[in-house]
């Protein structure tokens, strides 16, 4: 594992810590988020590692505190109060654990405070080296502010203007295969030098630049940049067209993140002394756990972290890991940007009651300006769920633009390919072959009913065929991600037992029927009981099957629908249950929603009822002709 390697280099098993990881009994991990610092305590209990307790407190990166360790202390103090353990002392966390049992064997943390790691990337060709650089930066947990390329259709002065106005934490510069173009790499380098971008944090320090391009261009790049910037040269990200080598760039980004960015953020100099484990960007921690899930089960996984400010999407598909972050798609600070990008009409299509769009617009604006408020009524909750679906849809759309094959690679074309010129521009992710869809983040983890997160994930991603659904129980994936760099076994045990909540399995035939009627028939056999039923096209049917239970499933779709074996072909398999159960989603793929408002609302209510998504009383209230616009 990439980060583990990096960690070892920096000497995780510490000068202070004498125990080996397998001897650890109490471990404390925090995530310093943009709004909240979350502490999670893990303990060894009768030979297995478990999650024990949590504490949360507002992050203190901003004025008047400007010292993140205060928020960390407050969060850890909550854990102390709840567990009765002594974890804090004047100098910070009590670590390593003392002979009298006070303190912890390990303290580690992730961070996204103060906007996380914000990067600009540059390359020669937009769809080749620049795209590889973007993937590397995103994979390292960064937010990519802009991608500059020779062919990005901007004039040089526009690019310079853009670079000048951005204030990134770091720049990743790529371009050219080894032995290839020097001129174009030098051109981009000169552009960056001319623009003289300034770093976001720490006035007067040199902005770090990672160069991961043509090795022959290194002298020219060094000559232009070394005096003005903290330049780090690593192996080429595209040494040859057919290969993308993002690891050296990613490692360099993590090192520079610690050395330059974190050390300039308020209080991090202190925090860095509290632990020997390098501070990891929150999304990097989250991404590691989605990868763990894929590796553990040897399956294709799509994961999503739906936050207040950003939406992170991760895919591990046929062994390829891609992460994207949509910096301005989120459920609180960025809620109006979701409205802007998705359009109000697309949000309205998920709202099951009659209300003027202008009122929804005002409601979302009011959420934007007071982002910590929470829905009190079910109608308000339904509106937030409507926005969440669109944030997920847009986040995934963005993701698919990067989850695609390498551009510029010579390939032998067959007759069929000639008629599919666009094939190489499209994503390689085929929803029919995604085995696991998992979510984390405030709205999903804290949804009052798990069925809500299940349907939001289904509507946002539209899985096809059979897809298992899961979610993070109480938001601890970033914590487990950084823990896994030191103690992978503990991280895995806790992940399986306390973090991952199995929601169930979604069975969604691909295709659309022109007329109403049966979509498929199924037979479920579990614990000696058999259930057989038909599901009508356009509807959802849920069959309860508890977590940990396995059922035998026989599916017979009608001739135009495909559950994985081709249109009309049946399927026999076993499926896993979950807190929601087996969800037969026969609404068709792609999912279409009626444009007739009355029909649309009727349908939405039927789907929500089938999922048991909200309390029954609300459906009556919404269907009542006297009620308009919710409360």
């Amino acid at each position, binding site marked *: 594992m990439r980060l583990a390697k990096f960690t070892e280099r920096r000497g995780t098993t510490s000068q202070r810590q004498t125990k080996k990881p397998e001897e650890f009994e109490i471990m404390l991990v925090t995530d310093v988020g943009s709004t909240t610092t979350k502490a999670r305590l893990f303990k060894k209990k009768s030979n297995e590692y478990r999650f024990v307790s949590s504490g949360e407190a507002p992050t203190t990166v*901003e004025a008047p505190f400007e010292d993140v360790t205060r928020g960390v202390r407050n969060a850890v103090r909550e854990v102390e109060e709840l567990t009765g353990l002594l974890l804090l002392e004047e100098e910070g966390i009590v670590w390593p654990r003392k002979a009298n049992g006070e303190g912890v064997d390990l303290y580690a943390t992730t961070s996204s405070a103060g*906007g996380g790691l914000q990067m600009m990337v540059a390359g020669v060709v937009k769809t080749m080296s620049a795209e590889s650089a973007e993937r590397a930066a995103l994979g390292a947990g960064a937010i990519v502010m802009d991608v500059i390329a020779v062919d990005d259709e901007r004039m040089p002065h526009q690019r310079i203007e853009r670079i000048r106005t951005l204030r990134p934490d770091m720049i990743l510069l790529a371009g050219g295969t080894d032995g290839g173009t020097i001129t174009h790499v030098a051109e981009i380098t000169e552009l960056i030098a001319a623009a003289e971008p300034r770093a976001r944090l720490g006035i007067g320090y040199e902005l770090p630049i990672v160069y991961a391009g043509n090795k022959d261009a290194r002298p020219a790049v060094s000559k232009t940049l070394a005096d003005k910037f903290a330049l780090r040269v690593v192996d080429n990200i595209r040494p040859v067209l057919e290969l993308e080598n993002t690891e050296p760039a990613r490692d360099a980004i993590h090192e520079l993140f610690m050395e330059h960015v974190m050390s300039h953020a308020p209080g991090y100099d202190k925090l860095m002394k509290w632990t020997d484990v390098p501070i990891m960007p929150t999304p990097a921690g989250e991404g590691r756990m989605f990868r763990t899930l894929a590796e553990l089960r040897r399956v294709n996984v799509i994961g999503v972290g739906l936050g207040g400010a950003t939406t992170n999407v991760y895919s591990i598909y046929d062994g390829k890991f891609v992460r994207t972050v949509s910096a301005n798609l989120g459920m609180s*600070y960025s809620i109006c940007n979701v409205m802007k*990008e998705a359009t109000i009409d697309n949000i309205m299509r998920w709202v099951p009651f009659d209300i003027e769009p202008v009122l929804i617009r005002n409601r979302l604006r009011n959420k934007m*300006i*007071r982002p910590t408020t929470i829905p*009190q009524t*079910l109608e308000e909750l339904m509106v*937030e769920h409507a926005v969440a679906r669109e944030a997920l849809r847009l986040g995934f759309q963005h993701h698919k633009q990067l989850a695609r094959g390498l551009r510029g690679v010579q390939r032998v074309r067959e007759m069929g390919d000639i008629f599919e010129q666009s094939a190489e521009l499209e994503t390689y992710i085929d929803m029919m072959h995604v085995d696991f869809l998992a979510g984390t983040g405030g709205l999903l983890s804290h949804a009052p009913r798990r069925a809500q997160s299940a349907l939001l994930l289904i509507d946002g991603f539209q899985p096809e065929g059979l897809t298992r659904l899961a979610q993070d129980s109480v938001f601890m994936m970033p914590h487990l991600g950084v823990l896994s760099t030191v103690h992978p076994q503990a991280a895995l045990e806790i992940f399986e037992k306390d973090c991952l909540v199995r929601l169930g399995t979604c069975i969604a035939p691909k295709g659309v029927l022109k007329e109403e009627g049966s979509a498929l028939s199924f037979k479920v056999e579990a614990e000696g009981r058999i259930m057989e039923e038909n599901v009508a096209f356009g509807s959802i049917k849920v069959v309860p099957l508890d977590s940990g239970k396995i059922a035998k499933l026989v599916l017979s779709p009608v001739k135009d629908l495909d559950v994985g074996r081709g249109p009309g072909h049946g399927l026999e398999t076993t499926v896993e249950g979950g807190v929601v159960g087996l969800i037969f989603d026969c609404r068709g793929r792609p999912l279409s929603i009626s444009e007739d408002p009355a029909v649309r609302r009727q349908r939405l209510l039927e789907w929500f009822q089938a999922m048991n998504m909200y*309390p029954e009383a609300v459906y009556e209230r919404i269907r009542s002709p006297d009620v308009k616009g919710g409360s």
Partner: protein
Amino acid sequence: MSGFGHRMSKEEVSVAHAYTPGLKVKRFTIVSKTRRLPIPGEVLVKEGETVTHDQVVARTQVPGDIHLINVANGLGVDPEEVGPFMLKKLKEQVTKNELIAKRTSFFGLFKSFVYAPSDGTIELISEVTGQVAVREPYVPVEITAYIPGKVIDVMPRQGVTVRTPAALVQGIFGVGGEAHANLKMVAKSPDEVLTPERIDSSCEGKVLVGGSLVTGEALSKAAKIGVKGIVVGGVEDEDLIKFLGYEIGVAITGQEEVGTTLIITEGFGKMKMPSRTFDLLKSFDGREASINGATQIRAGVIRPEIVIALKDTEVKGLVEEEEETSGGMAPGTPIRVIRDPYFGAIGRVASLPVELQVVETESDVRVVEIELEDGRRAIVPRANVEIIEE
């Protein structure tokens, strides 16, 4: 803070500090403003000096725009051959359209010329790409004091801090930048709607104070007449889009070039301005005010503001209103609800139940029981109220 729909476990009970600090509405406070240059420069005032709102307190020069021209292509030579054809050297000044490179070939039969795209200095002659960079002259940048007051701190080469006793009203959201003008009340009560009929030529160059809503038509008329600013309870999102000409995605504002700075004190939609805010502004009708619509919700919260500097004679005997302290809710505390279904309702804390309560969404949350102005009682998540400072 908890996210929405946060179902908290018992363990998290003591964690929920959910409470939105109230916006400041103060008759007398001390306002300090740090005025900082974007890059180091020269500070023009001294500590202890009294400054006016429009006085320049610091200035600097920012590097001008840069133009990259591919001279190698222009002359039809390889990049490494550019040097000898350059008529201007590195660091040399050039004027717009001045010849900077020339190549003559075939005994003068063919000539190629490259001219300077702007006034400036030659900053780069690249032998790798054949590019030449011309940097335009430095652009002067000046910053004013924004509020009248006394310079209490000078940061050498960076800027100053100006302080004044003042009345201060913070809004919840605004657009448009800093402005300075006299306040003019155009509403008689805080629930009135500001319509175009209320705006006439006497409003030119003024900051208008309305009531519960400003209409889209009123906004365009105000901008046309040359109104400097509008302070009002609410605005319809659709009217704001029309006023700006685009839709705001992320709440970082202040840079809009709309002519009229708009500050809303309550939120989107028709929302009565609290009497306390309205009465305070009314008591300063006709007075000079410094206003700024700049808003930033995330990472270093900035709220829009109206600052009315007070004279020393006005503050004699007044006691500065204390800063609010977080978590200061107790029975009797005046509060305002900031989310549906009671959005805008004002009342007092009746009780603060310790146990989590299940609200209609089925989330277990910390709640506050409120006695509303009309005597009704309501249970509301604590995250959905803000304290009204008295």
